[in-house]
């Protein structure tokens, strides 16, 4: 009796498998239609100023070119929506997203290849930015749109009150953090401040993302490319351990990190910094307008992250956004036209939003754009200077698992002061090896 029922169920399931059919890639050869409306997705909170600027950019594109297009801002669950829309091959036509997503998107076959030499205006875009649109096979799968890097936001008023020098070394940064945590920099007579604000949650790999600045600044990296396209883990070498140890000491030895750090994503960290809970925050230039508005310009200074002890020179994580053109779009000409407009001087200028608070281009990728003429705040130039020595994340086929693994490990190391740092990083290196093998780019 039971067997009969199970058999019935099984045949129902089989029927289902037949009905849903098998997938084929031929569906990607969609008939072309210049009038098809382009869906343009950008990873910004819906309803935010950034979303409004994205909408402005898209509308300007429509006015200028006559193509039809619509912008959609999505933030939380962006990857979820992408994966799910990809599952039935209805990705949006254009996606403006992190450069770090390049490998993931390319290895899944989501994005069109771009011919850099024939891309209109491509010569005006900076080499460093183009590099972030290049996959490990040497081809370009996106058009660079925006670049940025990270620097230290410091509470100027706190530093002045305690009479601390501008940070020139890592030791300076550490001492400043300790002073902020112990010497009552806000002068309210209460011990309610911390040195560092860190978005250290595992979500979207934030912890790894923060740490990578320290790691790159130390001259280390997550992975080392020993032959072109062949990688080995470098996350447990001396430089990586030194950088992690320095960070862990801030957490565990000096207790100068804001207490919510290991659970915080960036939005929470922003608020923590704004509220004066912590005084040193390593983050991107896109936060400048908001912090100036919420905290007052005089309370803010921006310093480059100083070179790590023993490192050849300063560095930081280079990041940015690319314009990805997806496969299967019914309007390929429109896709390209949008990419061209978005990277043109006109497009970049709209997206930089002057001194408004909704910029979606941080540092322009178009070398013809004069940053100083658009952003009058001189602190912007610090970021442009740092960007010249910044490094992007390794171009493995799919970076996301590495970032997630690293974030999980580092988050655990920082959250648990009794943890074995060296042992944890060794274990992480093994996980990296496994993942490299899985992606067929292991060079050991």
């Amino acid at each position, binding site marked *: 009796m039971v067997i009969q029922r199970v058999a019935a169920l099984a045949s129902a399931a089989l029927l289902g498998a037949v009905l849903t059919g098998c997938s084929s890639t031929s569906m990607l050869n969609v008939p072309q239609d210049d009038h098809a409306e382009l869906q343009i997705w950008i990873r910004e909170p*819906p309803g935010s100023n950034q979303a409004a600027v994205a909408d402005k950019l898209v509308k300007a594109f429509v006015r200028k070119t006559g193509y039809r297009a619509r912008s*959609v801002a999505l*933030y*939380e669950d962006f990857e979820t929506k992408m994966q799910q829309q990809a599952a039935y091959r209805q990705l949006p036509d254009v996606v403006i997203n992190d450069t770090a997503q390049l490998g993931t998107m390319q290895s899944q076959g989501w994005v069109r290849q771009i011919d850099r030499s024939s891309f209109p205006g491509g010569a005006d875009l900076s080499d460093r930015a183009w590099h972030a649109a290049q996959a490990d096979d040497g081809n370009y799968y996106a058009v660079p749109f925006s670049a940025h890097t990270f620097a230290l936001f410091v509470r100027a008023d706190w530093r002045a009150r305690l009479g601390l020098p501008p940070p020139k070394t890592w030791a300076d940064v550490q001492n400043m953090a300790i002073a902020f945590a112990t010497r009552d920099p806000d002068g309210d007579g209460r011990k309610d401040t911390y040195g560092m604000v860190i978005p250290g949650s595992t979500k979207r790999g934030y912890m790894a993302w923060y740490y990578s600045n320290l790691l790159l600044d130390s001259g280390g990296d997550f992975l080392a490319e020993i032959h072109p396209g062949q990688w080995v883990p470098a996350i447990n070498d001396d430089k990586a351990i030194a950088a992690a140890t320095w960070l862990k000491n801030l957490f565990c030895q000096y207790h100068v990190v804001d207490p919510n750090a290991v659970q915080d994503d960036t939005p929470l960290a922003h608020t923590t910094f704004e509220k004066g809970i912590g005084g040193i925050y390593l983050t991107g230039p896109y936060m400048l307008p908001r912090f100036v508005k919420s905290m007052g310009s005089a309370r803010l200074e921006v310093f480059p992250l100083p070179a790590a002890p023993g490192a050849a020179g300063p560095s930081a994580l280079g990041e940015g956004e690319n314009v990805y053109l997806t496969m299967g779009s019914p309007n390929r000409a429109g896709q390209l036209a949008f990419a061209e407009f978005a990277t043109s001087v006109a497009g970049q200028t709209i997206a930089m939003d002057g001194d408004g608070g909704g910029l979606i281009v941080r540092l322009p990728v178009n070398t013809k754009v004069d940053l100083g003429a658009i952003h009058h705040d001189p602190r912007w130039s610090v970021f442009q200077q740092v960007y010249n020595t910044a490094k992007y994340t390794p171009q493995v086929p799919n970076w996301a698992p590495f970032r997630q693994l690293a974030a999980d490990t580092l988050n655990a190391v920082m959250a648990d002061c009794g943890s074995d740092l060296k042992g944890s990083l060794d274990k992480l290196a093994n996980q990296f090896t496994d993942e490299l093998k899985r992606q067929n780019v292991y060079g050991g």
Partner: protein
Amino acid sequence: MRRAQNESLHTVLGLQARNGPLALILKTLLYGGIILVFAGPLLALLAGAFSKVPDPTKFSLWPHDFTLGNFEVAAHRGVYRYLFNSFVVVGFGLLLQMVVSVFASYALARKKFRGAAIVMLLVLATMMLPEEVVAIPLSVVLSDLPLLHVNLIGTYLGMILPLGAWGFSIIVMTEFMREVPLSLEEAARIDGAGELRVFWSVVLPVCRPALGVIGVFGFTMIWDQYLLPLIVAHEPSQFTLPIALRTLRTDDQVGIGVLLAAALLALLPSVIAFLLFQRQFTRGLSVEAVGR
């Protein structure tokens, strides 16, 4: 008579029988404590939603610096649009779910037919299927319904139709309908009532309490939905409130007060539904407790 006098026999502890001043104080403290533990955090949410820039770290039961500003900002972020979406989904979803369940239960409870066991097994099996497990495949199915070739992504229909398949309601309703005396039905049939008539004017009226039960439980279930509306929504304007909450939390430009205001809007309908239909809730729980 003796029972009425000796109240201590009516409850396990016989707490209510003690009324001395000390007992009164103790009871007040005890009940106050219970209310504080379970309702306190939600009251604090209420207070925060009306406070100007509430400190994210501190919780208070009274709003300081009373303001409606949080709701205004929330409105700018489209919270009322999300609330509207939630209402549409919960309204039609619940209606569909109840109608479908009632029909199916009628057959399962009152008819003997070949295949009934398999249908029941199917219903039970799907109850073990966490919706997260089938989220991606479900979105594939919704994007191109087999045989019909309709794309339901980005439509209310796509959010509503899957809600119709809800095993719990069928099980509860079937249990209940089995208990309706056969004599009622026979009397009607002898009178010449057709199948629909028997269903509509004999069995259904008797089951009204059970309708209340699956109604309130269905409501909470649908109101709690996260993944289904997320995968069906094509863009943010189609989101429901729970998804919007998560987006608001990570929105740089709004404070925690706005988040709490939105959370309050997400909380209120379910609380109101609970207060209105408390009896049905209680009854549903007792079905769960001693029914199966």
